[in-house]
């Protein structure tokens, strides 16, 4: 697959939402034409506005559009694309999709179908980890055939155990099981979710580590055997096993551990002959012990925090590598600076167990100013669709130190206005102000342990009297009091006067 290094002229982005916009922006900056695809539910999604060309690829459900390999390949060929960027989620880790691209002479911007299918990176990672003193979490690699098998394995490892989607990532198809009685329901919903999210119902089981921290290492590898690691990210703030806040560097990692994890990750990638961007995930238990968790053979949602500390545009690097360019960066030149943090803005109601919140965005003000980065795709008037992931934006800040990055995040979150739907903004404000989080004292159980969904007064900055004032003025001035038999509306002042007999 050696090709003369030459940037692609035209690339198809096989995704939607903020990541489609992110990739389009990189393509535009590189002077590459950007083709996007959209389902029937997404004609008004702004990833279309950020692309050069747009093609409709089918009905709203992802299985009929964003997961429709045949249709996407056909679109890439029809539009004359030389490569496809899969983003994350959807087909990003589908070896069938990568193979279909390759068969049609289209470059898959990622590690290649063989690498994905054989999970060489993952296998090698497990081997390398053992040799380097980082153990692997006990667990079966094999898809579970039924509930009974799950229970047998769980008893072998000891509860708690966790069920995960084989094709997965991003918390979809994941369930913790703490006792045999919970297995039935967990098995079923995990399977359904896996099917719905990845088009593949396969799930497996492993030992669950209590109160761990999630640490991962970003790597980049070119087609000629050069590779680098770009420091770690900590992603321990999670709900439903899905990340909500990520940062780099991790407050739990020192230079020595950083080097150990980074070099171990590279060894695994090297042994596997891995190419393009990848992430090796670890968990750190309460006693300070690392376990190898898994390997992601794609761009991560949280890649911006690494970008802001290193200055390296990971999406452009992915595209350059796939175009056949050798990596222009050497390990010794990578000196991450300062601290970066990302808050994922989901259309979910944090005061109601993070249930999805849908509807039209009636008002939107994005934060801005120094060292504030927005990755977004929604706009005022946009109707958040029911069919896809509820991630509507990512807010990332950088600071010379972690406290500065957090102070910027806090300031930016306070500027952020999204009305019409519930979002995770109030949750993020709460976390960034929380003393445990500020001290770096947290684990993946943080939300269960600390967050009630109802901020108490000590976590508030705005006096409740101000909310009463706003409500009272709103009611008094409300013109939405229709008068029977009158053509218009009236307002409360007039209304009151009439009741009083004053006119």
């Amino acid at each position: 697959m050696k090709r003369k290094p030459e940037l692609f002229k035209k690339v198809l982005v096989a995704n939607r939402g903020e990541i489609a916009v992110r990739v389009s922006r990189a393509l535009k900056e590189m002077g590459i034409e950007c083709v996007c695809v959209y389902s029937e539910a997404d004609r008004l999604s702004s990833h279309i506005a950020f692309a050069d060309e747009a093609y409709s690829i089918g009905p709203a459900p992802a299985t009929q559009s964003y997961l429709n390999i045949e249709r996407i390949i056909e679109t890439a060929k029809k539009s004359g694309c030389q490569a496809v960027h899969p983003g994350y989620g959807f087909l990003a880790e589908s070896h069938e999709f990568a193979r279909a691209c390759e068969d049609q002479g289209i470059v898959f911007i990622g590690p290649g179908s063989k690498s994905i299918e054989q999970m060489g990176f993952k296998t090698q990672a497990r081997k390398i980890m053992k040799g380097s003193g980082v153990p692997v979490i006990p667990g079966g690699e094999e898809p579970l055939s039924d509930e009974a098998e799950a229970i047998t394995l769980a008893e072998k490892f000891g509860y708690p155990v966790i069920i995960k989607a084989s094709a997965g990532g991003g918390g979809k198809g994941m369930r913790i099981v703490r006792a045999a009685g919970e297995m039935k329901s967990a098995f079923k919903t995990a399977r359904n979710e896996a099917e719905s999210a990845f088009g593949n119902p396969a799930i497996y089981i492993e030992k669950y580590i209590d109160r761990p921290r999630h640490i991962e290492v970003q790597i980049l590898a070119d087609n000629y055997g050069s590779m680098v690691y770009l420091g770690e990210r900590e992603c321990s703030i999670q709900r439903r096993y899905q990340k909500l806040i990520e940062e780099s560097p991790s407050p739990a990692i020192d230079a020595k551990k950083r080097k150990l994890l980074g070099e171990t990750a590279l060894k695994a990638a090297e042994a596997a002959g891995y190419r393009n961007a990848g992430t090796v995930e670890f968990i750190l238990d309460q006693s300070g012990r690392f376990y190898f968790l898994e390997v992601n053979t794609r761009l991560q949602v949280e890649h911006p925090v690494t970008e802001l500390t290193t200055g390296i545009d990971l999406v452009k690097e992915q595209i350059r590598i796939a175009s056949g360019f050798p990596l222009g960066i050497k390990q010794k030149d990578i000196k991450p600076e300062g601290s970066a943090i990302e808050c994922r803005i989901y259309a979910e109601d944090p005061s109601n167990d993070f249930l999805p919140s849908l509807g039209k965005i009636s008002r939107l003000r994005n934060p801005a100013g120094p060292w504030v980065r927005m990755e977004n795709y929604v706009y005022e008037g946009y109707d958040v669709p029911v069919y896809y992931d509820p991630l509507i934006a990512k807010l990332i800040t950088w600071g010379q130190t972690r406290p500065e990055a957090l102070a910027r995040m806090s300031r930016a979150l306070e500027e952020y206005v999204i009305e019409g739907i519930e979002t995770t903004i109030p949750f993020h404000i709460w976390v960034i102000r929380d003393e445990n989080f500020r001290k770096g004292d947290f684990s993946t159980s943080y939300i269960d342990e600390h967050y009630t969904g109802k901020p108490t007064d000590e976590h508030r900055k705005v006096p409740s009297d101000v909310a009463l004032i706003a409500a009272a003025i709103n009611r008094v001035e409300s013109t939405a009091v229709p008068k029977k038999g009158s053509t218009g509306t009236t307002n409360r002042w007039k209304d009151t006067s009439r009741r009083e007999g004053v006119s």
Partner: protein
Amino acid sequence: MEGYVKKGRRVVIYYASINGRDAKIKIEKKNDMYTIEIDDRSYVVDRQHLEGSGALSLVVDNKCYEASVTRSDGALLVCISGEKFEVTLKDELEYRSASPSARHTGLESEEIRAPMPGVVVCVEVEEGQRVSAGTAAVIVEAMKMQNEISAPAGGTVKQILVREGDVVDSRQVLVVIDRG
């Protein structure tokens, strides 16, 4: 009566509740400025409407806030700098006539509603089936997450109003349970 006239100025009174706290609000307007008393504290408020956004710019005794107010199920939702508050306001009339939680008590049947819009993945109960509180009744998928909707109380399934594949709205009734 909701308001009265004091020295030629109009005054409106509300009985408010916010985060479990009760308060009495006296609101008076003069020359486009408000004087608002909450319990024993008095505030001078300059409010302006931000064009197009429906938001209020408030200067309360020189402190600045930007507030948005929306209505939801009889309450007012106030959002200021990313913090959310739920406020209920009653005027004198509403306050006096309100008897504690008159609605939805003593009902013979209970409705299971969708907590958010989504697609029905699976109906787990049948008409006539006995259920207890917490029994999963319907699984609704929204934004790739599957959510079990459970019976809030025990009883017999009286009516099933949706089936697999249906797109449901937030608050839509999915199943009716007979509490008898």
